[in-house]
């Protein structure tokens, strides 16, 4: 069993119109190995995965599976050969039940044996410790649970190779632990696991080997135990070590005056957040901390009136204002980058240009379209400013990588010159380099006098950028930490103790 290759890819190349996604990349997966695939946005990880899983056809190179050269024609093909995948974006049917989702498309029989299916699903769910019932509709489960169901589905298919593309991005620590347990079990059974994540700590916790890609090229394959974290980062980013370490040292910015840019009193929304008070000063960066489902997103959505506001009073710069719709909020100078980039952020089929100008255009009004020239100017300006990688401003945003899509949404809001910008998980599912860029940008904006709320599942990102942290639990604000008190331990302590 020792170092037996189950998958060997050699000289893989793949191009898309205008983009060379992969160039001469090798990748080897051994039996019973957990192999982390690392790289920045657009490094080619997703493309490589899609070639392994038969979504894309390779332009050149060869794939050897279990000693036999193969050529996948379709995802079905790859699945039949024992390659199971869980993609970053959950690809299940929300209006079917949990059990149906687990077994959909896999029955040889034309008739569904409901009882048997539900029983089997129940058994699997409990053995994996997934808190869901087989007959429950999938959409009623949290994103984390949906993710685990997707994994359960893949696991159940007797796969030899399991590909996990960002499986942990929406899981909290406990759930991650459970997932890791599961991964270790599979590893012991001899399953080769390809693991993609942006959480470096997780890579070191679970993986045996690391393959690093950059700009579509192979940088190298390493033993995890022999590659220090700082070196990994520098290999991914292609930057010198000193560069990376200075980036980490940026301290929180102190707010400079006492004007409340935004103030909410007893605000609550139809999404079920308890009435809360909240203020933010000019040039301040604050964060909402809390576990998944603690209501941090619901809070900021209430501020932006993304959910129906049910009660409360809102002041901008000390003046009482009415914010009943997102448009009201925008006109008051609030911007909101939503948590769910694909569902709430991008307009997939529209061009990068239209996506950038959208918010500004809507604020200007229905009868005042920007001229083509203006729109192009604005777009180019922000594409340069945020170094967005796109073949042209007319490219549909959906063909950009995740991090670049996120930058486009950022550009959209920066273009409206908001006084108060809310960023809900702007760094989710994007590479380390872009994460650092976004954090730097946040600090830079605050220095120029913008107020920002920065929410992230990675607490050290928030510790690095926020000067004040609001701690939430069970849809309620349970504490506030700033300055000296703002440490990871304290945040954990407040969450653990609840409202005291």
């Amino acid at each position: 069993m020792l170092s037996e290759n189950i998958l060997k890819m050699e000289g893989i190349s793949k191009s898309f119109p205008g983009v060379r996604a992969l160039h001469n990349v090798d990748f080897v997966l051994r039996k019973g190995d957990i192999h982390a695939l690392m790289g920045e946005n657009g490094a080619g990880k997703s493309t490589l995965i899609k070639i392994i899983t038969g979504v894309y056809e390779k332009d050149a190179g060869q794939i050897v599976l279990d000693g036999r050269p193969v050529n996948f024609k379709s995802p079905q093909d790859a699945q039949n050969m024992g390659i199971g995948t869980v993609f970053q974006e959950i690809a299940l049917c929300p209006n079917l039940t949990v059990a149906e989702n687990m077994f959909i498309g896999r029955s040889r029989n034309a008739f569904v044996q409901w009882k048997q299916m539900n029983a089997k699903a129940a058994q699997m769910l409990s053995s994996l410790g997934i808190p869901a019932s087989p007959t429950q509709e999938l959409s009623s489960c949290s994103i984390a649970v949906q993710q685990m169901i997707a994994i359960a589905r893949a696991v159940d298919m007797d796969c030899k190779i399991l590909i996990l593309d960002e499986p942990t991005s929406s899981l909290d620590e406990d759930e991650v632990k459970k997932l890791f347990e599961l991964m270790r079990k599979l590893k012991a059974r001899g399953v080769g696991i390809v693991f993609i994540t942006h959480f470096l700590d997780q890579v070191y916790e679970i993986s045996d080997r690391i393959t690093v890609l950059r700009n579509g090229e192979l940088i190298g394959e390493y033993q995890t135990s022999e590659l220090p974290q700082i070196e990994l980062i520098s290999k991914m980013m292609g930057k010198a070590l000193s560069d990376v370490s200075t980036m980490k040292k940026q301290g929180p910015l102190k707010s400079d005056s006492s004007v409340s840019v935004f103030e909410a009193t007893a605000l609550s929304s139809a999404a079920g957040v308890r009435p809360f008070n909240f203020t933010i000063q000019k040039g301040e960066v604050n964060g909402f901390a809390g576990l998944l489902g603690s209501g941090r997103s619901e809070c900021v959505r209430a501020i932006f009136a993304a959910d129906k506001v049910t009660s409360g009073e809102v002041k901008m710069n000390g003046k009482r204002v009415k914010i009943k719709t997102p448009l009201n909020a925008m006109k008051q100078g609030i911007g909101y980058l939503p948590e769910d980039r694909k569902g709430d952020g991008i307009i997939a089929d529209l061009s990068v240009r239209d996506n950038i100008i959208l918010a500004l255009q809507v604020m200007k009004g229905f009868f005042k379209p920007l001229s083509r020239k203006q729109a192009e100017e604005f777009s180019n300006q922000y594409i340069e400013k945020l170094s967005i990688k796109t073949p042209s401003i007319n490219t549909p945003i959906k063909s950009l990588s995740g991090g670049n899509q996120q930058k486009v949404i950022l550009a959209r809001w920066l273009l409206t010159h908001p006084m108060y910008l809310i960023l809900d998980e702007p760094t989710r599912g994007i590479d380390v380099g872009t994460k650092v860029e976004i954090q730097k940008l946040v600090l830079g904006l605050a220095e120029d006098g913008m107020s920002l709320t920065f929410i992230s599942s990675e607490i050290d990102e928030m510790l690095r950028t926020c000067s004040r942290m609001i701690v939430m639990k069970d849809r309620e604000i349970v504490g506030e930490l700033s300055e000296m008190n703002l440490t990871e331990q304290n945040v954990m302590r407040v969450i653990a103790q609840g409202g005291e």
Partner: protein
Amino acid sequence: MTRLKEHLSHLSHLFLPLSVLVLLIIINLIKGADYFSITMVNGAFYGNIPNILFGASELVILTIGMTLVSAASQGQDISIGEIATITSAVFVLFVLNAGQVTLLTIIAGFLISCVAGLVVGAFNGILVSGFKVQPMVATLILFLGGRSIAFMIDGKLSPILANNISNQIGTVIPGVPIQTPIILTVVFIVIIAVVLKTTNLRLYVESVGINPSAARLNGINPKKIIFLTFLIMGVCAAVAGFIAVNKAGRHDSVNLLKLIMMDAILAVAIGGNSLGGGKFSMSGSIIGAYTIEMLNRTLLRLEVEPEAIKAFKAVFIIILMVIASPVVRVFAGKVLDKAKTIVAGNSLPKTGGLNNAVVSSTDTSGKKEK
């Protein structure tokens, strides 16, 4: 240079409707070389092309509305023929009750019928945007009941519009060589073009059609936009009804623009638009509408039995949709790529070689398709 490329990519959207149009013209020219000949009758142009433009007037106008409804609501309005029947009934009622018919009465009648169109459109719009009824189901109501409503407005079978102005609107105005419906259609197309140019209608409609949730978080109210498209649809139906009833000279509430929604939906599809909403090409839809009219007349010209025309049309459309399907497109793309590499291998010079490759490869793939 990039502008040029963009224009070319825009033209590629029109590939389907334009190629069909060319194909139909070729078939017609084979049938008789006099296809394009235009004669002057009583000071107005007649011939195959003017007939197509004349005949397609209502369809083109309805297709414009259908394009917007499809794009925003991700569904179709199947009651457009019935809306047009209702609004034209209102128009006829007003004109017949006016006593003396002047240009002013006609214009007033037309405006009132437009208001009726807005009301009916609002009814559909509220069902779809407010009550979240699927567009086809919501408009099924008027599809079933609309003609009865029109009949009740008429009060009798087929009231006749026997006045000179109506006749001129339906045919020609003395001294003007182009038939009036053609002129009205052109005016309508220009108005829509101006609206698309001077407002954000396109951006809003496309955003709502692609991702209503994201559109809402950017300050667009998807309900309002979907409602708006149904209002526009209502006005389009009113204008089409106005033209149709003046052409016919009487209001036949049973047969006026019967089943025209099928052709309008088809025109939207031929125009390269997704019936599932999102980005739309108005020029594609308009060309699609004219193409359908041309197809109808081509089949007549080929002396296909009137009863069999629908079957022929169906076969033609199946072929069309298969050619335009993503499957075939991907295949054609591969053939094109292969041809490109072969040609590029022969002629190394950078830009010139590439251009040659494009030209010759389109030639070969064109041959293959035929």
